[in-house]
């Protein structure tokens, strides 16, 4: 068993000579690789964000040209397509079973009369 008592002026125990750094070597190598990749993601993110500036400008330009107000991410209903322009508090406005984006929508059931 290796103990932390080893010091630099003592030769390693013969039993440890062939097994020294059996786990820590590959582990430290793997850790370094992961840390390098982590740093690379930060660098790549900075580079990609800079490179995306013309694209963002192009999108912003279209927004300015057409007077757009919302992202075309959620196109299924009026109040999801244009959340910033929707009627205020518009739960169930599209059809009785429409899930809405307010927390209440998942708690308050549809009025019974509408489902019969």
């Amino acid at each position: 068993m290796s103990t932390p008592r080893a010091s630099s002026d003592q030769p390693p125990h013969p039993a440890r000579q062939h097994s020294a750094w059996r786990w820590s070597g590959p582990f430290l190598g793997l850790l370094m690789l992961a840390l390098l990749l982590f740093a690379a993601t930060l660098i790549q993110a900075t580079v990609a964000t800079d490179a995306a500036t013309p694209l963002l400008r192009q999108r912003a330009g279209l927004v300015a040209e057409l007077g757009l107000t919302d992202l075309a991410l959620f196109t299924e209903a009026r109040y999801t397509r244009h959340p910033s322009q929707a009627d205020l508090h518009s739960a169930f406005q599209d059809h009785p079973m429409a899930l809405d984006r307010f927390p209440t929508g998942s708690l308050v059931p549809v009025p019974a009369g509408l489902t019969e």
Partner: protein
Amino acid sequence: MIQDMRAVLRRQRYLLEYSLAALARRPGKHLLLLSVYALIVFLLSSTLLFTQAMRQESARVLAESPELIVQRLVAGRHDLIPAHYLASLTRIRGVSDGHGRLWGYFYDPAVRANYTLMVPRLDPPPAGEIHLGAGVARTRGLGLGDYLSLRSARGEPFAPRVTGVLDGRTELVSSDLILMHPDDFRHFFALPPEHFTDLVLEVRNPREVRKVAEKIIQALPDTRPILREEILRTYDAVFGWRQGMVFLVLSGALLAFAILAWDRAAGLSAEERREIGILKAIGWETREVIAMKLWEGAALSLMAFLIGYLLAYLHVFHLSATLFAPVLKGWAVLYPSFTPTPFIDGLQVATLFFFTVFPYMVAILIPIWRVAITDPDQVMR
């Protein structure tokens, strides 16, 4: 000095070697723990990276949206606004200019998709022609020169020719758009003349926008002004809310993992207690036992964090957040094809690191310290 430093480093490496060997004695158990730990970090990181990127992107893109929009409300719902409202509004002090917008929705039963029909203020397509968003063109399989067949509000067929397709790189804001001539728009929706969907106002001094909005409500009480800052706030809230929902769904898994990790880290088995007793009996000091166990925890939690984060980065910024697409799509047929721009908030990553790695280390420290300060003879018994 350098000799001392080397000795310290070598000692720490021996401790790490011992810790890794201890982990390797039960590979199945520790690999499972590492996988679950990395999976939790992956889910949390993916959510954080995606919502942060979308928040930043929406803030930058929508910063160019109209400064002030005025809707008319009838019986609490958005209604068409008469053109003469524009004259009253542009007379308000601080308003420099204004124009009406024509836009609306059309549900296409052929593909069960909602389109946003819109009239560009400047340079609209000629009558009988339309420009399509890339999502509409893709969904309907249309290209330049094709005809899009729709049924108007009066039930008449309307088949304008496609003379333009918007750049696919702008899909995030234009995927479902159909741009047309104002006369076509009014005829298609049977809109009364001299009415608009809403009005856009330009304010001379941006700091006066709120004041102008107050004056609008006073002058025309049946209107609702929408400020650009409200649009930006809406998106901040939408992504914050979606992030919160994902965290809520994940909270069960997080709790289960916390219990597992706590049990693994805090509850020392009899075998581990015995091992510590033996180490102390052969001359290990308390701080060395603690350092050894901390290395064990650090190796596990650091690797889990890095693996989880790197996979999340790959998922969100190189695989277009594939796992989130079904959640974002909802029931939408038209979904923009896009890859988020990697806006990374260092503070958020640091917070994630702190909340995923630190609790595990603390959970390890306390029970080890308790056992390590006890007499070896007592521990081994």
